[in-house]
């Protein structure tokens, strides 16, 4: 199988990832195009691409889900390939097929792999059949009469989940098997009530789970490599906030095992281009037992947090994606993949963690990004741009690399302090508190960490000295306040005093 040479690339995305993909495309000497919604007309990607084509939809998001419009735009701009970014249509097998049918190259995996891994139950079964670790489970549908017995055999702790469920509804943790039957009864009735379906499955529960994922890369000739792991355990409502590489949790041997498993899964799926295999990892609490890890899912796209891998490996993943899609062989084998130092990324969002992460809006009145050693910023906003709630609230990714984790943290905190964004509230102060947190610095995080430590989101009011300085600036910039002060001495002189 050979690919087609790529001379021009259309980015079917927006914000920071559009800028990120364009940057590499331009470096490789490709012509570039981007689609955009009018609400984003001031975004930097629109000016950065050679050709910018407006797209429309019932909502701004709907425009980016319109594969037909996007393919038409690629033809109009004379492009050979489409990069879907992440989100939107990036994991839509139908879109991948339509792109190929239109004679264009889809920068991503083949549609069959997208189909396989997109169906979470099918993916799990595929992975388990080939001997890779999945969380031991008992699925009621397999044999309802033996369900409870099979669930009991899993051993505590377990998670009882409605099969039709989502968003954590109806899930309950059972730590004492004596409570298993009551939990099953309750979960069943909730499944019926919320989803109209009372069927269940039970899975081994990992205490204080950590989210470990492995970057993989495959060419069209069956060569697969892993690019080591990332840890993304600091999350809120299943949304990642901080990602890093390497994981501070894994021992060297565990790291190799998880990465080898990921590469094996990708190989078994005949995977092509960039992808990420996600695992749940945990150590039985308070023991010295080895950690256990289980396949969670595979994401058949470039992920938001890919810069972290790029900074420790020195590779440009978008470049690798483009080369693979153009039919090139992988330019290196597994032993040539090395990592140096430590990289951490934080996601800058237009939201207020202090107010339960409520989204924020505003105009970018002042904007300045940090530029210290080992610091990288992937952003997609411009001065005077209006931040709205039309799209997801991510404004930028700020990443820092250092020779070790502590150095990376120090550099990242400095970068956050140097980041100036005025006019729209962001989570920058929260991110700084998080990086300063003792538990985070010790690497002792898990996916429930922020829920256990709500004070990190809350923050403290400014101290008196800071408050005085802030009020000083505010007063000096507010005309009614300075005018009132300007006038009083002369009034006093003229009137004596207004008594009573």
């Amino acid at each position, binding site marked *: 199988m050979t690919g087609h040479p790529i001379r021009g690339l259309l980015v079917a995305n927006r914000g920071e990832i559009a800028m990120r993909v364009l940057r590499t495309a331009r470096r490789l000497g490709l012509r570039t195009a981007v689609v955009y919604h009018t609400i984003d007309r001031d975004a930097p990607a629109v000016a950065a691409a050679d050709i910018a084509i407006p797209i429309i939809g019932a909502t701004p998001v709907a425009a980016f889900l319109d594969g037909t419009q996007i393919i038409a735009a690629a033809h109009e701009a004379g492009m050979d390939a489409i990069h879907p970014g992440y989100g939107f249509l990036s994991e839509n097998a139908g879109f991948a097929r339509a792109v190929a049918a239109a004679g264009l190259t889809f920068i991503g995996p083949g549609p069959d792999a997208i189909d396989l891994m997109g169906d979470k139950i099918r993916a799990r079964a595929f992975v388990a059949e080939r001997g890779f670790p999945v969380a031991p489970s008992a699925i009621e549908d397999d044999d309802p009469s033996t369900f409870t017995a099979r669930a009991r055999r899993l051993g505590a702790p377990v998670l009882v989940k409605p099969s039709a469920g989502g968003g954590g509804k109806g899930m309950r943790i059972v730590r004492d098997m004596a409570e298993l039957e009551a939990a099953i009864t309750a979960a069943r009735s909730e499944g019926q009530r919320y989803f109209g379906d009372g069927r269940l499955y039970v899975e081994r529960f990992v205490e204080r789970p950590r989210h470990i994922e492995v970057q993989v890369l495959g060419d069209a000739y069956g060569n697969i490599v892993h690019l080591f792991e990332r840890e993304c355990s600091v999350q809120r409502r299943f949304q990642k906030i901080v990602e890093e590489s390497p994981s501070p949790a894994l021992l060297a041997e565990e790291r190799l095992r998880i990465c080898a498993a990921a590469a094996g899964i990708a190989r078994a799926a005949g995977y092509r281009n960039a992808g990420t295999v996600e695992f749940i990892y945990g150590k039985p609490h308070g023991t010295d037992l080895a950690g256990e890890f289980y396949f969670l899912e595979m994401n058949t796209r470039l992920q938001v947090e890919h810069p972290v891998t790029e900074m420790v490996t020195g590779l440009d993943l978008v470049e690798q994606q483009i080369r693979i899609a153009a039919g090139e062989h992988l330019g290196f084998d597994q032993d040539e993949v090395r990592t140096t130092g430590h990289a951490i990324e934080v996601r800058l969002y237009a939201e207020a963690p*202090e107010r339960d992460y409520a989204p924020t809006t*505003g*105009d970018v*009145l*002042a904007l*300045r990004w940090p530029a210290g050693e080992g610091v990288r910023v992937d952003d997609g906003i411009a001065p005077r741009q209006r931040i709205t709630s039309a799209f997801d609230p991510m404004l930028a990714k700020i990443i820092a690399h250092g020779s070790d984790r502590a150095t990376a943290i120090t550099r990242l905190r400095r970068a*956050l*302090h*140097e980041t*100036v*964004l*005025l*006019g729209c*509230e*962001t989570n*920058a*102060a929260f991110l*700084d508190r998080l990086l300063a947190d003792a538990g985070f610095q010790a690497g002792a995080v898990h996916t429930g960490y922020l829920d256990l430590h709500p004070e990190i989101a809350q923050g403290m*009011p*400014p101290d008196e000295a*800071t*408050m*005085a*300085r*802030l*009020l*000083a*600036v*505010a*007063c*000096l*910039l*507010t005309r*009614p*306040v*300075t*005018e*009132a*002060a*300007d*006038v*009083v*001495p002369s*009034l*006093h*002189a003229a009137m*004596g*005093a*207004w*008594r*009573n």
Partner: protein
Amino acid sequence: MSCPRSTQPWGPGVTDMQSRFTLLGAEHSVWLSRSADGYRLHVGASGDGLAISLSRGATGGTDRVLTVEGVGTPVVVAQRDDQVFIHLDGRAYALDFLDPVRSLGEDAAGAGENDIRAPMPGVVISVPIRPGDTVAAGDVLVVIESMKVQTTLRAGLAATVLSVHVAEGQTFDRDHVLVTLRAAS
């Protein structure tokens, strides 16, 4: 006329013309005083206040230096309507100026009688309403002048004028009830 120097050069009546800003949901009262050397900031009950100044912006206008009692701090600032945005010591803040006139209009939002009070001492320039008049939100109630600045007090919402307590040319103190309204039900 010579002005006696004292730590409290303003007598009661002119009073502390407090300005209010909110930050992170908390309200802060401050006022500025002016001396030959520049402005002084008074937060709470502080006596002499802090000597403060803000440098002029360079080309972009957003980078300034705030000096408090001779100590300078670089800040980045921006403004929009009544909001002041400040980047100070590695953090961004947004302060909202509570315009006393506007917030007065907003106070007159309940059922029953609403007193419209003077936000500061002054003199009545004009009062174009009479008891019994119906007013709509935004209609002029009283035009006053304080400190050589004219201010228009407007109805916060639709109401009926119950009483008018002042007349053209009359002086008053801060908080003096000027007009009483009854909000339209």
